[in-house]
């Protein structure tokens, strides 16, 4: 893509969100072949065991469980509040952080350990060049 030209489709909000030309977007982890630790984003060396080889990309699951959360009421200007910041353990490995949506931001409603699903949506904001971004969030799973 020439520099300065608008992308043909949305760009990933983070490098570990992959948008294949065919098929659905997904989150990618890097798994250490020695200690099985899972990381987000490119890396050559394992931070858990120090291995310098044997790290390989792996497609992370779109299902998982809510580990913990907070309800954010005060954020930077322009960020809509309240919203739920959630830490989710994905099935099969990998832990990611994101917004939990589709549920009232209410401690009485949100259950730690509840099953959730990763969904992909166009972000409500563009960058200065006018590019759209694809982001991810979590929704409760029945």
């Amino acid at each position, binding site marked *: 893509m020439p520099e300065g030209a608008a992308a043909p489709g949305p760009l990933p909000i983070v490098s570990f969100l992959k948008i294949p030309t065919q098929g659905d977007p997904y989150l990618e982890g890097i798994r250490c072949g020695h200690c099985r630790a899972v990381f987000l984003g490119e890396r050559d060396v394992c931070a858990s065991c120090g291995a310098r080889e044997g790290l390989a990309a792996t497609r992370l699951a779109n299902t998982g469980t809510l580990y*913990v959360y907070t309800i954010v009421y005060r954020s*930077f200007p322009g*960020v809509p509040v309240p919203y739920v910041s959630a830490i989710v353990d994905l099935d099969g490995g990998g832990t*990611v952080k994101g917004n939990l949506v589709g549920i009232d931001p209410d401690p009485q409603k949100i259950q730690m350990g509840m099953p959730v699903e990763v969904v992909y949506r166009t972000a409500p904001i*563009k960058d200065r060049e006018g590019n759209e971004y694809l982001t991810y969030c979590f929704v409760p799973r029945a």
Partner: protein
Amino acid sequence: MSDVYVLGIDMLKFGRYPEQDVPELGARAALLALDDAGLRIQDMQALYCGNLLQASAMVGQRILQEIGQTGIPVTNSSNACATGATAFREGWTAIKAGLYDLVLVVGVEQMGKAGLLGGGGGGRGIPKEGLLGSQLMPAVFAEAGMEHSRKYGTSFEHFAMVSVKNHHHSTRNPKSMYQMETPLEQVMGAEMIAYPNTKLMCSVNVDGAAAAVLASERKARELGLRRAVRVKASVLTSDPWTERDLVMPDVNTCTRRAARQAYEMAGCGPSDLDLVELHDCFATAEILHYENLGLCADGEAAKLIDERQTWHGGRIPVNVSGGLLSKGHPLGATGVANVYEVCTHLRGEAGARQVEGAKLGLTHVIGLGSACGIHILERI
């Protein structure tokens, strides 16, 4: 190797000093510590300075430009909220190594009315804050607290009680930013920042400075040990890899490791401590550290606060200074100021808030990212 002693230590009242700059605040604290030790800047063989927000601006040298450019080596440290403790430990290390007999340590920070910390960076692309959860400190420590709730059922009210206690303690500390009672309903009813932390459960952004004169045993004996405090343990850890730490900073593991090492170095256990100043950057954090420091068994932190065991007069008073929640949290100064607090009790000079008969105390800080600093101090 020589034992290390605190010969002089003091701090400025934490507050807002818009008319002064960082070196001026550091210089005032340095002079107070020198006076407390009865020594001059010419007696100091090295300076270890902790400051975070001007980490590239040679704050230590600028302090010497205020109080005496003696040409001594200056090391400027920055280690997030463990910055002050790191500078203190650098001084301790140099004396342990036999390089010097007398060093000056200064921790200083000017926060102004800084807003929410964290959440910066992001690089190119669009801001992630509010789209991919929150990276802001109140949210990070709220999530850390919710992990405790998940495991043990710790409630909003338990966390809020920490703030009630620390604000109460600060009413007897003239060097605290605030000296006001905050009843439980006021804490719980304050503006919610990131559940379960309300505004009164977040540390106070203040300006501040604290400084200490450290001495080798030989020098301390030569100068007289009457008010000297022995540094029984000095430990710094970073965070080992844990399962979720890419997205959920782990303040527990590095604290547990540091505590274990510190108790071993000091030859004591948590039940021997008379007081603890720990890193209550948010009310949720204090609950975690009760267990991390071994003040109670895992899962019993809520019981500890319920039974008022960590209140002044309780089994193990925690943050009798008012803590970061009320005394304030000037990042680089915090880890020296908590040593000041413990030393003041060990010297029997804490006035209305004195922990009677205090012989042994522990200080703890966490810098997110992460660093944990622990010092154990003993009356001699």
